[in-house]
């Protein structure tokens, strides 16, 4: 199967983008009901990045934030975070990191740093460190303890980021493994997720 920027956007993959965005929205809605500083709004981005690759993952992340941005423009700059998650998760999937436990741990670690980092960059530059969500309390706590702004925001994001990454990734990974093989076979990056016994028959 050919891969890469030019080949990843077949109709099958294109159709996954709306699915990914909708999954993100469903997750986001649960978050708002729960009112915790935990965000499971990237399940769609992870899922699509895993089976359709980095570039489709980037589009999913970006579009998700634009859709949210229609009601809350603050979400738009955070598109950078979703896009970087889509990009990295897609490449990890391509290089088969998710097939074994060590790869998963390494990937999640890097994804946490990437998402926390980009989130911190956006937060500090656009909003002076404030996001308007529950995480601000954590940030405020760090600030009150005497840390500088950059530091506090980054630390906040690392802590919540770790939880977020693990949750989002775990849910999407579990779901991907459950996708029937006949669909995975058609996706550019889906084959690694089919269990070995099924592949033997073909």
């Amino acid at each position, binding site marked *: 199967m050919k891969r890469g920027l030019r080949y990843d*956007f077949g*109709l*099958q993959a*294109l*159709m*996954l*983008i*709306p*699915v990914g*965005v*909708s*999954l993100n*929205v*469903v997750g986001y*809605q*649960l978050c708002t*009901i*729960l009112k*915790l500083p935990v965000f*499971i709004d990237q*399940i769609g981005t992870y*899922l699509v990045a895993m089976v359709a690759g980095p570039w489709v993952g980037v*589009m999913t992340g970006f*579009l998700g934030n634009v*859709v949210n*941005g*229609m*009601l*809350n*423009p*603050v979400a*738009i700059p955070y598109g950078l975070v979703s896009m970087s998650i889509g990009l990295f998760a897609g490449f990890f999937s391509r290089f088969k990191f998710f097939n074994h436990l060590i790869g998963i741990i390494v990937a999640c670690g890097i994804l946490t740093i990437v998402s926390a980092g980009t989130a911190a960059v956006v937060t500090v530059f*656009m*909003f*002076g*460190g*404030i*996001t*308007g969500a529950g995480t*601000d309390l954590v*940030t*405020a706590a760090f*600030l*009150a*303890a*005497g840390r500088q*702004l950059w530091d506090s925001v980054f630390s906040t994001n690392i802590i919540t980021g770790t939880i977020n990454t693990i949750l989002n990734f775990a*849910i999407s990974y*579990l*779901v991907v493994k*459950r*996708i*029937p093989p006949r*669909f995975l076979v*058609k996706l550019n990056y889906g084959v690694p997720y089919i269990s070995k016994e099924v592949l033997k028959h073909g």
Partner: protein
Amino acid sequence: MANPIDKWYPSTKLMIVLTVIIVSMFSTIPLVQYVLFGFAILLSLCSGKIGRFLNTFFKSIFVIVLFIFLVQVFIVKNDDSQPIWWFIGYSQIGLDTSIGLASRIVAISSIIIWFFQVTSVKDIVAALEKARIPKKVTFVISATIQLVPQMTKLSQTITDAQRARGIETEGSVLVRMKAFIPMMGPLVLTSIQQTDERVLTLEARGFSAPIRKTAYYSMKKTALDYMIVIACLLGLIAYFVGGPL
């Protein structure tokens, strides 16, 4: 009850948004931001959308602005912080920073909110098609906007079905989280299956046909559109020539 502003061409309205954003980014005095905010409110009034505008605005931006004030003014330690109580201190620099930040955010966000309230996605897509944006891009946008409400409905249906089977879905945080994952599985599976079948439907409607697409619904630019765009450009030129405020 169609408002004339709804009929303005999307790129015209976009031009207004860009003008506001550029002016906002280059301004340093908060007064300009207040004026821009007032401008957005005025536009919303003329568009007949003031109610929805304020509703969306308060739900989204207000909270951030409030937090920015509280944190910058009382918590961030600047050089001139005067401690009031425990870790809470008052800082004039904080106040100025927060006013500067918050006012800019308000100005930019409010014009963006206005834009999405007066421009339907259908119009945006029609304008993109006219601008020869590739079919795949406009397709993804249209499909996404249509699919999101369908998925939310589907997730609700699945949750209802699970409740009927005895799984607890309302209540404490833990209960909700536990109900979430069994809902995700069927949701994704059903969606992927439908997506798979829909790919065939789309090809059955000629999606990949290597032919220049035509449009059943299209918009036209009127003289008014051109005038507004020119007015924006002139405004920008005047702003920069007169010296950015």
